[in-house]
């Protein structure tokens, strides 16, 4: 058991435990905080996968923006009269069965894939993956079109969110 394997096992235990806690808490603020722990664990997994830039962007975007937005939404829409509500709806039995089956099927299928036992090839010492990622995102032979489309998507989401969440004025 190398140190890397130990770290991976620990962090995957943290991720799965806090994801389970997030899914089962009825207090939504606690669920959001467990979501933050899960997202941070995923960032650590990215570091293990030699994708340091993605790890930092994960913390910046998911924890710094999305998780905070979720906590805001939870705080703004909380019904104070009914504090301890049931968290699950009436279909939770079927949901449990379906998601367990799905995860199990995925695991079995992936385990039987021939390349599943592959070990990571060496990356090469002098590679700067950040520079290569930047070049890939803006070069015409790379992924500049998805990049530009993603920026248009973000602009549309920005305008859409503003319009949808605007307080409706009477007679407007």
């Amino acid at each position: 058991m190398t140190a890397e394997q130990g770290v991976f096992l620990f962090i995957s235990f943290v991720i799965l435990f806090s994801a389970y806690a997030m899914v089962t808490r009825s207090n939504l603020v606690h669920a959001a905080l467990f979501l933050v722990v899960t997202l941070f664990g995923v960032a650590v997994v990215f570091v293990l996968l030699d994708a340091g830039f993605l790890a930092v962007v994960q913390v910046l975007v998911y924890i710094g923006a999305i998780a905070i937005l979720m906590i805001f939404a939870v705080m703004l829409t909380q019904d104070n009269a009914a504090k301890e509500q049931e968290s699950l709806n009436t279909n939770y039995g079927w949901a449990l069965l379906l998601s367990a089956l799905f995860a199990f099927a995925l695991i079995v299928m992936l385990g039987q894939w021939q390349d599943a036992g592959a070990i990571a090839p060496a990356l090469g010492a002098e590679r700067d993956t950040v520079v290569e990622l930047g070049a890939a995102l803006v070069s015409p032979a790379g992924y500049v079109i998805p990049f530009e489309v993603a920026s248009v998507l973000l602009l549309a989401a920005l305008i859409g969110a503003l319009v949808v969440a605007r307080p409706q004025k009477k007679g407007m």
Partner: protein
Amino acid sequence: MIPLSWYLYLSAGLFGLGLYAVLARKNAIAILMGVELMLNAVNINIVAFWRYLTPQNMSGQAFAVMVFAVAAAEVAVGLALVISVYRRRKTVDASEINLMKW
């Protein structure tokens, strides 16, 4: 050394938990949190495949960045919708928001 299958099992487990959250929770915001879990699982998958199978080609990381952008956009619009619905119906319970016009 960590075999690729460990990362794939982790992302499958996380995806299953996210799917359970989407299907079984009442609160609309909790459903959105489940969707976030699923997107994160997909991201782990993409980056693991990039690292283990094609580390010289940057498409894995480029598409992980796209998934970040899409997730952020979706959360923004989704939460705006949830807050707007809360203003009208005074509830965010997904089983109660079942009428198109009232």
